[in-house]
């Protein structure tokens, strides 16, 4: 029974990591790195609640997705057209999110730092042999499959990879590098936005000042783990998600917290992330021009 609920929890914890990582994989393949995923998760989680309370859970998911796409668009414009530093822009998104959402929650619901999403506005789970499962799990697998197909089996996929490896070559071949990279940036934003909405109007059913709690960064670790392959992002999401879930379950278990302080258990996902990424990194070659602006002259 405990094993079953742990597996189910791990699958649910996988969703935001894998969906976010999948979007970022495509973006990094095209040459745009966004370390502001954490910020996009938080802002979209917030707007998704507003959307869901106005028009139901599906509207919430859509609002989250569009919010993310818009933030991805902004990051893309800075990175691609203004050739700004992608790290700075990403950090900016993270900081912006902390401020906007903290004020937004107070402004919207009058409560400081916390708002619970009513059952009526949440995504309804499907019943499965494992137990109640969010339909977003299926969406996650579909998105990974779609992204993989796009990258490996379409002309667009070739263009995306060329823009990340050698934008000058892509340019010479008639590929509109800026457009392809903008597509990548918006795609990553949109998927991250969807993941943010899942956090608030589905899985955690709440909005707080720091709802993602580092999941945007763990998604970046998942990207490294995946070596930019969407299928491996599912595997990575499950591994990191398992420890995330373990932390959530174990910290509420009286017997366990008597032996190990719950702070240590909650540290687990981050420690595991560090270890896994340290093991994977170095053996991984990211696209040569990823994170670099493309300039013709």
């Amino acid at each position, binding site marked *: 029974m405990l094993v079953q609920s742990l597996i189910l929890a791990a699958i649910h914890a996988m969703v935001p990591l894998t969906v976010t990582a999948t979007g970022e994989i495509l973006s990094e393949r095209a040459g745009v790195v966004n370390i502001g995923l954490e910020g996009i998760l938080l802002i979209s989680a917030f707007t998704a609640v507003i959307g869901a309370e106005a028009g139901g859970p599906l509207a919430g998911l859509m609002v989250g997705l569009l919010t993310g796409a818009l933030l991805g668009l902004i990051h893309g414009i800075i990175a691609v057209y203004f050739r700004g530093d992608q790290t700075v822009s990403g950090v900016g998104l993270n900081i912006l999110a902390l401020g906007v959402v903290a004020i937004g929650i107070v402004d919207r619901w009058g409560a400081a730092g916390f708002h619970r999403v009513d059952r009526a506005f949440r995504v309804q789970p499907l019943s499965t042999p494992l137990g109640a499962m969010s339909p977003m799990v299926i969406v996650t697998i579909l998105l990974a499959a779609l992204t993989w197909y796009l990258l490996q089996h379409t002309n667009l996929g070739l263009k995306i990879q060329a823009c990340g490896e*050698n934008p000058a070559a*892509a340019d*010479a071949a008639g590929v509109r590098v800026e457009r392809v990279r903008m597509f990548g940036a918006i795609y990553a934003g949109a998927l991250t936005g969807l993941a943010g909405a899942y956090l608030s109007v589905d899985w955690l059913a709440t909005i707080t000042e720091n709802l993602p709690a580092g999941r945007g960064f763990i998604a970046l670790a998942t990207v490294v783990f995946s070596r930019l392959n969407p299928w491996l992002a599912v595997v990575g999401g499950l591994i990191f998600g398992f420890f995330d879930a373990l932390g959530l379950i174990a910290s509420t278990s009286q017997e366990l917290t008597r032996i190990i302080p719950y702070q240590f258990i909650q540290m687990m996902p981050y420690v595991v992330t560090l270890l896994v990424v340290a093991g994977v990194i170095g053996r991984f070659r990211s696209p040569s021009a990823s994170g670099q602006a493309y300039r013709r002259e």
Partner: protein
Amino acid sequence: MPDRSAPPAGAAGQYKPVSVLAGAPPWLEMRGITKVYPNGTRALENVDLRVAKGEIHGLLGENGAGKSTLMKILSGILPFTSGRILLGGREVSLRSTHDALAHGIGMVHQHFSLVPTFNALDNIILGRGASLASPDRAAARKRIQRLMEETGLHAPLDIPIEQLPVGTQQRIEILKTLDRNVDLLILDEPTAVLTPQETDQLFEVLNGLAARGTTIILITHKLREVLALTNAVTVLRSGRVVGSRLTEGATAQDLARMMVGTERLPEVKERRQHEKTEPVLRVAGLTVKGDGGQDAVKNVSFEINAGEIFAIAGVTGNGQSELIEALSGLRPIANGRAYLLGHSINGKGPRELYRMGLAHVPEDRHRLGMVAQFSVLENSILGVHHEPRFRRGLPGTLHWGKVRRYARDLVHRFQVVTPSLATPMRSLSGGNQQKLVVGRELAKSPSLIIAGQPTRGLDVGATAAIRDLLVDIRNEGKAVLLVSADLDEVLALADRVAVMYEGEILAILERHEFDRERIGLLMGGVHDGSAAG
């Protein structure tokens, strides 16, 4: 787009390409093209170019003459400041390579534009077909195999580009452009990395394409190629058209004169006469490999005496960079020996060479000459920072007071204009950066200083200052190895000039033998007026 499968070679073989200069109607016209870069550099000034359909047109000029810039404009890579481009009598807008390819204009770049992790097949089909469709690799493979048969250009289709030799990459680059069914094929120095056999084969292919109506523009500095292949040639110098003429009846001398001009030697500081002394640097049968593993420097021998500026002239990319990298310990010597003051330098690194009396002003100033993010202070001791005179007691420590005194003295002596010693190097103008680099190297009191393109990209004042410094140390009895693509600089400064072409030294001339035309011919690979081939 027309179907390449339609006319096989020979079917339209009767078609005789002619030039606009011979009365053919112009098909491509570039009128009054001017290109000013955002930093104010005027790369092209009112350039006109007219080419007929099916013509092979040569574009000849020295480094920096604007040949590549003009063609990058035509292939949609660079925007131009003013002027018009007409194709078949209609003005066209070429704002991107996408536009250019849509008009049937394709360019084979000098620096390959291939994605290193893709194989040839994926590189060739990149950017084509509907975005969401699957790439039709089977059809593309068939098409390219037929193209390879037709043209005789063969390349493996399934091996990642990064694992292929440069000659093969070049063929893939050409196949890629031909597969676009271009009407106008631009080639930028296509033979730079090809063997003579491959070059001949390529020329045959190009002749065949022209016979079938493809218009070809060949960028080159090799006179032999212009004479062997083209119908007409346009010569550029410093961003302006010197003239256009039919190739028929032209000699290598005519073209060399157009290419390098006939100005008088510019004035420089007086040079003191010296007695001939023993050689400072002796290079014997030196062979150095290039990045692609080919022989970039081939069995080169020369000596440099004390009190002499020995210059290496030549168009960039003929092995000069590899030569100075080998002599300054940055690139292994594949074969042969070199001696500095009688001691072998084979296998010695930069620090040992410095101790032996070598100073080096690198060609690539920004990458090898300085650390752009570091301050002027830090940059002024790069390479000597380990010496006891900058220590505070233990080895590995730095006494910043001593460093500051040293840097202040350097800045003062070499008249580097900088707001402060703490200013990052990248905030200085190119001229002041170079003055600090040259000053730092001269302060090592070397016996030999190797200066690679020391005034490239500098303004007139800084150029004069650097040149005067080089003459000064020559007059002090030091040896200078100057590598410069600027013929004026070479003629003004050098006591002797070696001309390098395709990794070999074709000739070493004494100052009284200096002759622009002769050096121009040698730079174009022509020995003593006998245009080979």
